[in-house]
């Protein structure tokens, strides 16, 4: 029975297959107990038995997985927002490192990473940076990155060589379009940079900053990095839609999936999820309790999967646990 055909009829196919496997296992067991004298036969039977038991286990997991409730945002692209928190310039410099870590990770995954907006700090760190990431299963892979990322290191600005602790917040939002959030033009107010003059042919300006206000919710998004007003507006709308979609999702989500997110710890943006300790060269994820000692590889986007895979596995396990307990 292949996983593919199982997808089509998860319940039915699963039952038949489990039954078959069960029978096989039962028979093998009786062969082993009946052939006490034939050592070879016994040996062979127990080998096959352990294979069958193994396959049976794998199969059960697959079956469960196919029955688990899916996050319908999993396949969506996402918006990444990185913001420097406590720690001033050092936090901004680390925000830049984190932002670039996701860029490198995305490139390795073959995803498209598009910078939407960067607000630089005095030392060329990032006070805030936003990117759009698109590709296969982007949101599924990155959703658990939301939260506070803490850094411990000696800042370049620190003369005495003391280790500082600063923090950066990361938000991962599934992307949505205007239809997803039923955005109406009437609900939007769009402001542009006004030179104060008559505009049009009178003015030559390269400032095409756009601020969009969604009047019902009061959310505003400003973008000024792009070289045309149209592009600034398009990017601002993209971010606005993601924000509105997230709000809608959080209020609609069933209590069960909310619980799931909470258990893993990404329900709350203000939760500290990971620590990057430079003096010790380690990165620790506080939710799955995993530590790697290759901090550089993590920041180069190479080792991020160690955490991401563990978190995804944890999500699955939690879901299975929840599923089988109901």
């Amino acid at each position: 029975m292949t996983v593919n055909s199982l997808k089509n009829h998860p319940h039915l196919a699963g039952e038949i297959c489990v039954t078959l496997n069960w029978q096989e296992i039962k028979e093998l067991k009786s062969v082993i107990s009946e052939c006490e004298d034939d050592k070879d036969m016994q040996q062979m039977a127990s080998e096959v038995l352990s294979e069958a038991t193994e396959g049976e286990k794998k199969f059960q997991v697959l079956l469960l997985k196919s029955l688990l409730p899916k996050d319908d945002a999993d396949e969506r692209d996402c918006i990444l927002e990185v913001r420097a928190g406590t720690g001033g310039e050092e936090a901004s410099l680390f925000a830049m490192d984190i932002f670039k870590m996701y860029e490198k990770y995305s490139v390795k995954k073959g995803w498209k990473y598009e910078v939407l907006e960067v607000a630089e700090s005095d030392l060329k760190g990032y006070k805030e940076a936003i990117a759009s990431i698109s590709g296969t299963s982007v949101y599924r892979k990155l959703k658990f990155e939301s939260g506070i990322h803490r850094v411990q290191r000696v800042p370049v600005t620190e003369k005495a060589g003391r280790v500082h602790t600063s923090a950066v917040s990361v938000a991962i939002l599934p992307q949505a379009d205007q239809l997803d959030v039923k955005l109406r033009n009437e609900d939007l107010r769009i402001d542009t940079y006004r030179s104060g003059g008559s505009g049009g042919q009178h003015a030559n300006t390269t400032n095409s900053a756009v601020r969009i206000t969604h009047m019902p919710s009061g959310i505003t998004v400003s973008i000024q990095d792009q070289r045309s007003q149209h592009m600034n507006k398009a990017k601002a709308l993209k971010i606005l839609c993601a924000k509105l979609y997230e709000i809608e999702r959080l209020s609609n989500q069933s209590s069960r999936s909310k619980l799931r997110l909470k258990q893993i710890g990404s329900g709350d943006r203000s939760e500290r999820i990971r620590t990057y300790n430079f003096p010790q060269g380690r990165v620790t994820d506080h939710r799955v309790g995993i530590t790697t000692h290759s901090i550089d590889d993590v920041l180069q986007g190479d080792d991020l999967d160690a955490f991401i895979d563990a978190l995804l596995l944890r999500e699955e396990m939690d879901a299975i646990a929840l599923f089988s307990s109901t």
Partner: protein
Amino acid sequence: MRLSFIRPISCCAVSSPTTLVKPQTPLFLRPPTFKTTLTDLKKWHLWAKSLASSVGSAFLNLDNGPDSNQLLRELNWLIEDAIGTPKSILEQPHKSRNGNSTVLIRTCLDELYVLWKQRVEERRPFQYVVGCEHWRDLVLSVQEGVLIPRPETELIVDLVDEAIKENEELRDGLWGDLGTGSGALAIGIARILGSKGRVIATDLSPVATAVASYNVQRYDLEEKVHVKQGSWFEPLRDNEGEFVGLVSNPPYIPSKDIGGLQAEVGRHEPRLALDGGASGMNDLIHLCDGAVSMLKPGGFFAFETNGDEQSKFLVHYIETKKQGSFSKVKMVSDFAGIQRFITGFRGR
């Protein structure tokens, strides 16, 4: 109407107008064949930054010109356009690069000094300095003699898009962009039309028609956009009554205001593109008059104006002097809340 497209000579982007104007290649499209060192490039960058910073808000106060922040942002874009090697090398001084390493640029370093001096000291518009303007999702080539398309004008394409979505018949018809300049509107509209949709773009200025043709070619739209030189409707006589849509951003600044314009505009952009006569409305009125016979019944028009006063006047003009010719005539404001456009439909 179709005939004019089939005529073999009408390979528009190549058939040059009488006066030969060779369009310039924007900086970002030139090959990075010039070499300099990182040290020299950084020296230039420092010099350019301090020149930009020295401006403060002097230009802003003088004539609504750019302030230092704006100039610094433009400087980043100049680097983006001029450098063949990734721009980040300027930002990462310490990382494994010594000062002697070669940097490839698209014009020589001396020229970069000249260009930035022109930008700041002569107030030459940034878009002429780099030879292009980012407009909507397009990057259009521009040069002296052609108006730099304005952000307000981007909205006309959205207005056309809305009109087409309401009446799909407009998607595959003939459109006109009068006074096309760089070709911005013609290209923007051509890209939302259907496979049979066509645009004729006209301009009196040979530089404009040459640059527009070049931009049309760059966007592979030679089949869709036909550039013609001549005054307003004159080159369109063969197509009277065939247009499903007309757009224009004609010169609309009253003559008396030309002298007081922001230096970038007044000193560097072509007067032919700006001066709309005593009231500023000479051309707009001419366009409203001509649209009656050019448009098919149900055809759409959108014109840009100087703002509230002109828009109100024109709506009134159409309602009284062109009674019955147009329907649903209205004013549309730009993002700054100025009644920037008038739109309407030819009566059925």
